[in-house]
């Protein structure tokens, strides 16, 4: 490589294009420095600084919504900046912001150092933001591993409790397994795309576009098919789709509540963004739709059925929300399947993700307030009488759960409606039938939870003294304001999709 080539390659590294990620990563380092420099009595400021930094990055992102790099590739094709990338950046920043909020409530009850939590959270968020803009398998792998390893730490963060550590170990084994499958898939695709004996082979085999071109020229290569199946399996692990959902209930239960929320929302969002980048309308896997679509269709149907049926029998609310999250992954997969035949499907998936974010964080916010020191043992029974003790929390819970269940006119209903319309346009009738059945089942367990919070007077007075309910945390004004905003946003987004709908090109 001559000096001139090095200069050209360096000129392509537009650092300003990844300014939000750089800010988050620097902020993460600043937090660690602050922990050393600040006197101990001021350490309470650090979570505030982290939240303020995320909020500032989010505002900066909105102010510079159309950067000059939009629509171009930077870093020698490693990254591609698109409107979708901007939307998902905002999505992850919002998720991180609400996770910070939950962490302040939950970690306050645990004898744990706090600073590292925010540090790792910021790094993971930056990795997710890079992941959704990846245009090259190298970038995909490195970003995915950065976020996964960060999540191992976060899941096992309450290291004095066995539940959190066990959840961490299970997540570690499952995550590493899925990384192995994904990596082997990438390697096979790389090897076959670079093979000089095949037509349209490429010297830049890990670039999405080059790979897509090669696959168009070789529509039935065995090694390429195997590679695609392995990559899909790796991504399916991350989103918790059937049959790779085994880790979900245990990890969701054991992880600290803010991390469970982050896993459910942000990690799932990242997985679906990757899936859409690979299998979506312009993705490199499109020439292999004969292989990809049947797999995704079967996966979507099985995921919806499994998630909803398994959630029916749960009494632990974290397991319940985990398994219902599996069902939501199934509905989102339905949208991905529909993307082949409907122009609005991609937008519908992103809208669903936003509705899911609002509703989930509303519910997790209530869970963080109701839970006691035993973070893994949050039972449905603890919600008895919530409407009397705290009408505000009970209302937020009802709105959040209603939106998750898809009750009109909440945002979750619109999300499901858009996905179902897209699936109808794409002609996935059988899958729609399964999805509709899934929605009905989901209403049963979501309303069981709402019933526990509101209608305790209807249950006969328990003779056996139930294990004492945890004391819970009173609602602070920041948390109250945020939860109120989340609930209100879930309602408003159901009536008026406005600018969000325009970004997502729903119409």
């Amino acid at each position, binding site marked *: 490589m001559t000096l001139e080539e090095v200069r050209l390659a360096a000129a392509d590294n537009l650092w300003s294009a990844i300014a939000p990620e750089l800010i988050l990563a620097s902020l993460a380092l600043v937090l660690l420095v602050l922990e050393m420099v600040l006197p101990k009595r001021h350490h309470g400021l650090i979570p505030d600084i982290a939240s303020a930094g995320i909020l500032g990055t989010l505002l900066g992102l909105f102010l510079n919504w159309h950067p000059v790099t939009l629509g171009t590739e930077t870093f020698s094709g490693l990254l591609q900046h698109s409107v979708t990338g901007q939307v998902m950046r905002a999505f992850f920043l919002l998720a991180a912001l609400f996770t910070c909020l939950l962490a302040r409530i939950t970690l306050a009850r645990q004898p744990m150092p706090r600073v590292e939590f925010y540090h790792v959270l910021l790094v993971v968020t930056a990795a997710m933001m890079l992941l959704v803009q990846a245009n090259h398998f*190298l970038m995909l*792998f*490195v970003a995915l*591993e950065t976020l996964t*390893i960060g999540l*191992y*730490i976060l899941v*096992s963060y309450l*290291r*004095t409790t*066995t*539940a959190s*550590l*066990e*959840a*961490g*170990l*299970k997540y*570690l*084994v499952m995550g*590493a*397994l899925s*990384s*192995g*499958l994904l*990596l*082997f898939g*990438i*390697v*096979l695709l*790389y*090897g076959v795309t*670079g*093979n*000089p004996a095949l037509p349209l*082979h490429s*010297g*830049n*085999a*890990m670039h999405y576009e080059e790979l897509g071109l090669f696959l168009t020229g070789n529509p039935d290569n065995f090694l390429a098919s195997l590679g695609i199946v392995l990559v899909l399996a790796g991504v399916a692990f991350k989103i918790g789709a059937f049959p790779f959902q085994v880790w979900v*209930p*245990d990890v969701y*239960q*054991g992880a600290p509540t803010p991390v469970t929320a982050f896993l459910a929302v942000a990690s799932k969002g990242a997985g679906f963004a990757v899936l859409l980048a690979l299998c979506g309308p312009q993705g490199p896997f499109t020439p292999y739709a004969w292989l990809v679509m049947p797999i995704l269709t079967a996966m979507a149907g099985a995921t919806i059925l499994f998630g909803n049926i398994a959630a029916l*029998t*749960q*009494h*632990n609310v974290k*397991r319940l929300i985990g398994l219902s999250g599996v069902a939501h992954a199934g509905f989102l997969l339905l949208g991905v399947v529909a993307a082949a035949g409907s122009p609005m499907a991609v937008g519908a998936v992103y809208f669903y993700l936003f509705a899911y974010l609002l509703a989930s964080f509303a519910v997790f916010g209530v869970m963080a307030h109701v839970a006691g020191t035993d973070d*893994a043992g949050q039972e449905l029974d603890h919600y008895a009488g919530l409407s009397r003790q705290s009408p505000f929390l009970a209302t937020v819970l009802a709105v959040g759960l209603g939106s998750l269940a898809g009750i009109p006119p909440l945002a979750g209903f619109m999300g499901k409606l858009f996905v179902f319309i897209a699936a109808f346009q794409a002609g996935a009738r059988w899958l729609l039938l399964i999805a509709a059945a899934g929605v009905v089942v989901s209403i049963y367990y979501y309303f069981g939870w709402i019933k526990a919070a509101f209608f305790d007077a209807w249950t006969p007075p328990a003779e056996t003294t139930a294990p004492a309910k945890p004391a819970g945390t009173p609602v602070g004004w920041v948390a109250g304001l945020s939860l109120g905003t989340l609930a209100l946003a879930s309602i408003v987004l159901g009536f008026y999709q406005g600018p969000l709908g325009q970004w997502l090109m729903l119409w």
Partner: protein
Amino acid sequence: MLTPDLNSYLLISVLLFAIGLAGVLIRRNTLVVFMCLELMLVAATLALVAFSRFNGTMDGNVFVFFILTVAAAEVAVGLAIIVALFRRRMTIQVDELNTLKN
């Protein structure tokens, strides 16, 4: 002199990968499971280097450095979790780690 061709390398790599995968699914000791996970990464690395050499492209070799770094980070975090868990439970057998049950 007999030089191995691409298929020999791939065969070894697939074998290593299969051994690793089987180990993760079958073995009950967390440390052995962890070693098997690393074996899967190494198998992918071997295939990557072989492809890189026979295709005449360098990015495979560069990718290997990233994989090694990631594997090292994973081991650091993983062993820390296993040690912390062992201190609390005095066991790392997969069957006995059953706190999280419905």
